[in-house]
């Protein structure tokens, strides 16, 4: 009986809901028959917002119209949405102070009608506006509010974006460690949710951070990650900004050509999508670049253009830097009055941006936020559980659907004889896995741990820590590189450097080593197959250098370019091939050099698949008396950028 009653009441409620709904929608529709309905508007607004990165000006115009329509048909959710979009667009075209008004209005409405997610978005927008204007205190406060609102509605994408923006503010405030922490959080969350492009954005920001810390090579490595993700998704969205940072890094590293190439690529990219704020940065970079080359006229031209744009977008921070740099340019030209004038304005501006009170307030806010974050943790955890469940469900669907796809594919493959290619792909993957295992030579791993034990026994905490960290870094690099088919030459060189420093420590500096790259190669921009060189280096140590007596070993690794191919030489002065073979033949346990074998067959397979030449040659060096004098391995690879 009770159950029955219950059911009736539910039915009644459903009926009432429908009646009410019709009641609210009908008059709106009746009032503005000529106008579009809320669902259509919603669709329009969404596509308009999605195209903000492509054409901000157009989005702004559309948003103006959408705001008016939403008001007229009393579609408040849409109104908030459109206001938010309009705010973003205004900021994008360089009008952050106007954007503030829109976002504040959006917050007010969202609170009134209890649209939590829109409210969070509006806070994000507002914070972004403040950040652009250099009002970091307000920006920080609004981002933290946004994050906590996102946490309430369990929107992990929102939370991740929030952390990312928080990182941006901290980056501007020079709280680099905090910024890195937040970026990492954001990147991890994005990867978890499956938004690689957003993760790429986070990597770009990390790069900006490392760049500020003068760690340009690390910055470059993060930027390459962004490029790679963009490439694999065929997205241009992140490219201009990544190129901009790359240009800056190369400029700092005095690699002028690469820098100019990147700057121009980024400037053109920004111009295309009309984002004034970044166009400013690109202009500034080019000015700065010419200043570095002492081309003062060109430099002044670009700086002046940048200055005008900086005023337009109200970017005080960049303006201050431009003023300072311009002053330096004038100083170089001997125009002392102008130099003084610009220097003075720059100093005044800086004072107003970062004063001590500002900093203290941020620090206080930081602690406050941390406390809030703990309170939010529970809800975040809950949300992560839900996510996990969803992901599992998605995985099920994925497994079933991929099963069907594979079956179809196999049937087709038998018909059109495609399985040949499939087989070589599998072979490649298998080989790469085996190569990983060969590179993580267990013997090497345990010997490294053994070496660390020595420092522990010796109570030499410094060296133990150093060795341990180096070892951890090498393992990490190995795992990271194994995921990629190709890596940059720069990364490979870093990897070899790290590996060799560990090995030479282990053998008590029995040999010295040297890794060089000729000037006509840009190591950051050149790609080589991952895990190719290391087995040769390991071989040189184990069979050549480890066995020498009464003299010092040396190992030279050289990368150079010849006839459009990339060459790598691994050159040792060890006991040489013949001597090594002699004693190996006599050995009780025969050594199997898996690494070398695998590398050879992997290169052979790559030659077949890529139709490019990968070749290994071995030179048995002889000295004046025709005696063995070490071994030189030459690996020939095609030049890939």
């Amino acid at each position, binding site marked *: 009986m009770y159950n029955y009653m219950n059911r009736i009441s539910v039915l009644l409620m459903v009926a009432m809901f429908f009646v009410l709904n019709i009641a609210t929608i009908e008059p709106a529709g009746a009032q503005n028959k000529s106008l579009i309905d809320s669902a259509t508007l919603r669709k329009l607004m969404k596509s308009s917002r999605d195209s903000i990165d492509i054409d901000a000006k157009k989005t702004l115009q559309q948003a103006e119209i959408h705001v008016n329509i939403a008001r007229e048909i009393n579609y408040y959710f849409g109104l908030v949405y459109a206001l938010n979009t309009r705010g973003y667009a205004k900021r994008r075209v360089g009008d952050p102070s106007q954007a503030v008004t829109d976002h504040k209005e959006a917050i007010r409405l969202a609170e009134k009608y209890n649209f939590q997610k829109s409210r969070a978005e509006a806070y994000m927008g507002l914070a972004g506006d403040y950040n652009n204007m250099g009002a970091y205190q307000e920006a920080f406060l609004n981002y933290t509010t946004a994050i906590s609102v996102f946490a309430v509605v369990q929107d992990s994408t929102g939370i991740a974006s929030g952390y990312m923006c928080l990182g941006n503010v901290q980056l501007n405030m020079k709280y680099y460690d905090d910024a890195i922490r937040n970026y990492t959080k954001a990147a991890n969350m994005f990867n978890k949710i499956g938004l690689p492009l957003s993760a790429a954005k986070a990597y770009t920001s990390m790069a900006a951070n490392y760049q500020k810390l003068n760690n340009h090579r690390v910055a470059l490595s993060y930027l390459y990650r962004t490029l790679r993700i963009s490439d694999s998704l065929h997205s241009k969205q992140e490219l201009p900004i990544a190129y901009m940072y790359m240009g800056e890094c190369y400029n700092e590293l005095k690699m002028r050509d690469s820098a100019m190439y990147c700057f121009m690529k980024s400037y053109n990219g920004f111009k295309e999508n009309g984002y004034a704020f970044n166009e400013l940065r690109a202009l500034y970079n080019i000015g700065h670049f010419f200043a570095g080359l002492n081309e003062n006229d060109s430099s002044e031209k670009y700086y002046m253009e940048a200055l005008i744009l900086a005023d337009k977008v109200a970017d005080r921070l960049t303006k201050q830097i431009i003023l300072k740099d311009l002053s330096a340019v004038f100083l170089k030209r001997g125009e002392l009055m102008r130099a003084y004038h610009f220097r003075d304005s720059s100093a005044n501006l800086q004072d107003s941006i970062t004063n001590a009170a500002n900093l203290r307030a941020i620090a206080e806010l930081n602690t406050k936020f941390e406390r809030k974050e703990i309170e939010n943790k529970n809800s975040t955890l809950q949300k992560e559980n839900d996510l996990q469940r969803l992901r599992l469900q998605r995985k099920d669907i994925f497994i079933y659907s991929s099963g069907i796809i594979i079956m179809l594919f196999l049937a087709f493959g038998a018909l059109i004889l495609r399985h040949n290619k499939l087989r070589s792909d599998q072979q490649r993957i298998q080989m790469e896995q085996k190569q990983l295992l060969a590179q993580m030579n*267990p*013997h090497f*791993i*345990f*010997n490294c*741990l*053994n*070496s*660390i*034990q*020595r420092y522990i*026994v*010796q109570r030499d905490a410094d060296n133990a820590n150093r060795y341990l960290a180096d070892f951890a870094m090498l393992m990490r690099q190995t795992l990271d590189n194994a995921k990629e088919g190709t890596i940059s030459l720069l990364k490979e060189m870093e990897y070899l450097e790290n590996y060799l420093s560990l090995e030479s420590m*282990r*053998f*008590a500096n029995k040999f010295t080593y040297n890794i060089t790259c000729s000037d006509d190669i840009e190591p950051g921009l050149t790609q080589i197959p991952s895990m190719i060189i290391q087995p040769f280096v390991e071989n040189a140590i184990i069979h050549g250098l*480890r*066995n020498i007596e009464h003299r010092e070993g040396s190992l030279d690794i050289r990368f150079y370019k010849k006839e459009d191919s990339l060459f790598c030489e691994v050159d040792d002065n060890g006991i040489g091939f013949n001597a090594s073979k002699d*004693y190996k033949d*006599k*050995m*009780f*346990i025969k050594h199997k050099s898996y690494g070398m074998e695998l590398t050879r067959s992997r290169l052979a397979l790559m030659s077949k698949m890529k139709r490019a030449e990968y070749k290994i040659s071995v030179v048995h060096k002889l000295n004046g008396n025709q005696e063995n004098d070490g071994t030189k391995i030459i690996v020939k690879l095609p030049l890939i950028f």
Partner: protein
Amino acid sequence: MINAIIIDDEPNSVFTLDSFIKEHCNEVNIVGSAGNVKSGKELIEDIRPQLVFLDIEMPFGSGFDLLRSLDKITFEIIFITAYNQYALAAFRFSAIDYLLKPIRIAHLKDAVKKAEQRIQEKKAVFNYEQMLHNMQEKDPRKQKLGVLHRGEHIMLQLDEIMYLIADGKYTRIHVKGKNYLMLKNLKDFEEMLPTSIFCRIHYGHIINIDCVSKIQKGRGGNVVMRDGTELEIAVRRKDEFMKLVQHEN
């Protein structure tokens, strides 16, 4: 005091082991160290140590090569290796003590204590030659499995072993007319014994297929061993067993 030497090419390892022994093994006196097979051999011939800590991986050959180059092994050995599956299998098979790098102090103390006991009791030095023989012997039937039985080190030629029966956590090895109770479980033996002649036909026993005299059909069936013992074949393992028997014939 026991005079001992360390043969290892990595200075770090020598340092670590030397420090550990000084601190934890008062009965051992390290009197020298060598960094490769050649100088190791010279050192052994000069010093005539009672105990050698011997690394497997070295320049100019391995620790085994060093042992083979000697006329007679007159000392106890504690083998050391970072990672060499081949060597580890050989040690286990011949029940020989070894240490893994990085070294655990408890293991070191234990190995040293055992070696000391053997030296003091003036027992015949462990059958290292036997281990080297095993490593070279191609015919598995002529290999010898080293086992510890009531503290005694015995070598059992594989073609003498008829079957092994699980006895709780332990294992009883049956050879012609005798059996030995071992402090290892059946799984340990399954891993060591060559699968070309030994087959685990049941959860509870492993048999030498050369010693089967009759196969009785049934659901899984039974085997009758040479000494008349009947052993059950598990249904799940029958295919594997039959394949092996047919392959032999």
